[in-house]
């Protein structure tokens, strides 16, 4: 072999040696797609096929059943209370954590994550111990004829607990990455705090906020464990959609159970679609503003530029 021949072939070898041979590539793709097909796609498809087993008429009949309908209404009501509560908390917590430095910040961040790692059953039990008949406030509530456990307020509380971190978790890294220069400029130019939030911060975080809300909503509507502890399973009164699914399933009304469950599966699919759309939009926006290799999720400490002394001059 001649010298130039060696140099070109070796440079080609370096390039291809940071890639796997085609057969390895294909089998890795094949194995992972097979795994995902088995574990993700099949269960999803099964929900809809089981729901449609007796035809579209039976599917609709299962959805307009009065018990199913009242479960749907209760689920909507629960989400309509729990999600806004967690949105307000998420925005407030993200503002405090992302825009300021203070002692115990990492403790606060960890506490926000806590509901993720607590078993939903343990969460439900905690609310029973606070508000149940044997609980701390039990006698007082009984005296005033208020019902929280085995009633709608308990369901809302349990749902809010389980979905508490979702909005905050979405906003904190986003707002940390954005820093607070724009807000500081607005304040210095005379804007009030609210004006700054509405006109500067909110437009910057709207997509992240929207995704947080959507995910929070999907989880709120689908929460099963914690809600099943505090609900008492009173038909037509304290059954949410997942609890209705459980009842139908346990009564061997499989088709009806899957029909009601398919509503939640549709909601999950919608959530994923919206997430992807938001992510793609965000990527495109980010590609314009930031170098592409800047990962948002990993930014933990604000990548803030040094404060500009000129701002107040």
């Amino acid at each position: 072999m001649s010298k130039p021949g060696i140099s070109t072939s070796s440079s080609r070898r370096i390039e291809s040696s940071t890639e796997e041979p085609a057969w390895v590539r294909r089998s890795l793709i094949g194995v992972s797609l097979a795994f995902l097909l088995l574990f993700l796609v099949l269960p999803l498809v099964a929900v809809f096929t089981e729901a449609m087993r007796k035809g579209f008429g039976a599917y609709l009949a299962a959805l307009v059943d009065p018990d199913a309908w009242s479960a749907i209404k209760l689920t909507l009501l629960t989400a309509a209370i729990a999600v806004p509560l967690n949105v307000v908390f998420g925005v407030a917590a993200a503002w405090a954590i992302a825009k300021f430095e203070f002692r115990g910040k990492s403790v606060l961040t960890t506490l926000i994550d806590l509901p993720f790692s607590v078993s939903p059953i343990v969460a439900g039990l905690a609310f029973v111990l606070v508000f149940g008949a044997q609980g701390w406030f039990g006698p007082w509530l009984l005296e005033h004829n208020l019902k929280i456990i085995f009633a709608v307020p308990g369901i809302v509380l349990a749902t809010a607990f389980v979905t508490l971190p979702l909005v905050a978790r979405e906003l904190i890294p986003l707002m940390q990455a954005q820093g607070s220069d724009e807000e500081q400029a607005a304040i210095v130019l005379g804007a009030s705090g609210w004006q700054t939030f509405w006109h500067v911060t909110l437009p910057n975080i709207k997509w992240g906020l929207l995704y947080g809300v959507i995910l929070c909503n999907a989880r709120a509507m689908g929460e099963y464990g914690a809600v099943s502890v505090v609900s008492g399973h009173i038909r037509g009164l304290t059954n949410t959609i997942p609890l209705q699914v459980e009842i139908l399933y346990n009564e061997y009304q499989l088709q009806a159970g899957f029909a009601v469950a398919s509503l939640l599966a549709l909601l999950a699919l919608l959530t994923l679609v919206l997430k992807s759309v938001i992510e793609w939009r965000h990527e495109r926006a980010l590609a314009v503003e930031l170098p592409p290799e800047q990962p948002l999720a990993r930014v933990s400490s604000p990548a803030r530029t040094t404060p500009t002394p000129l701002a107040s001059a």
Partner: protein
Amino acid sequence: MAHGSTLALRNGAGGTAPLAPRRKRRRVLPGFHLTLGYSLFYLGLLVLIPLSTLFFKAAGMSWDAFVTAVSAPRVMATYRITFGASLIAALINLVFGLLVAWVLVRYRFPGKRIVDALVDLPFALPTAVAGISLTALLGRNGWVGQYLEPLGIKLAYAPAGIVVALTFIGLPFVVRTVQPVLQDVEKELEEAAASLGASRWETFRRVLFPAIAPALLTGFAMAFARAVGEYGSVVFIAGNMPMISEITPLIILIKLEQFDYAGASAVAVVLLVVSFLMLLAINALQAWQRRLTSAPT
């Protein structure tokens, strides 16, 4: 010269305003006390006070009663099942999660974006729906179960079914923690390794793997922590036979339904302590990954 004039101005500003206003300028944004106060209030009311009742309830028991409650044979069996199945499921997710993350970051194939989006399905799909669906699939007449049954493999209503459900639940964690880190690994490192004569496998094992190891462990720990507390997807598929396929969250619920509040709280405290420990471990792992990724620059 721009640089010079900036310096002059900076000096001028520093001259008229010494240290005190400068410290104030750091909190030029309003709302610190309001937002922090509200966050703490909400967190305290909704999370900390309710969870603390568990400790108070358990502390009200005598030590012997507590030990008896948390170490009764039926309860011990649930620990073995819960932690054992969670560990196996998290290990399955460790292997396949890494594989999926690798394939999504490194290769191109048709439908990749859809696959990428679908990975989050277990986050969005309610656990009860996952539970009944997996049970239907793996049952005797299910799409998958009908082929396994003749082979003598029983997944539904058996401990193996718990592993399947927990694998489903934990699937996104490893993928989503490894993916961004893998994306950030500098191509130059691999090229250097290759040019020094390393094979592809050696490059992976000695260059790439150490770079993503903390993220991989973080995902593993998250999947494990999630699996330990999981209830909805498991109760449908497990069959819930005492000593064989009963999980710890279920035994808490059973004690609660028998009005054994103290016993339920005692077992809940055990789970809660495990949750705290996992949370601390995950935080430490994330800090390790951050140090690793920020160190070379």
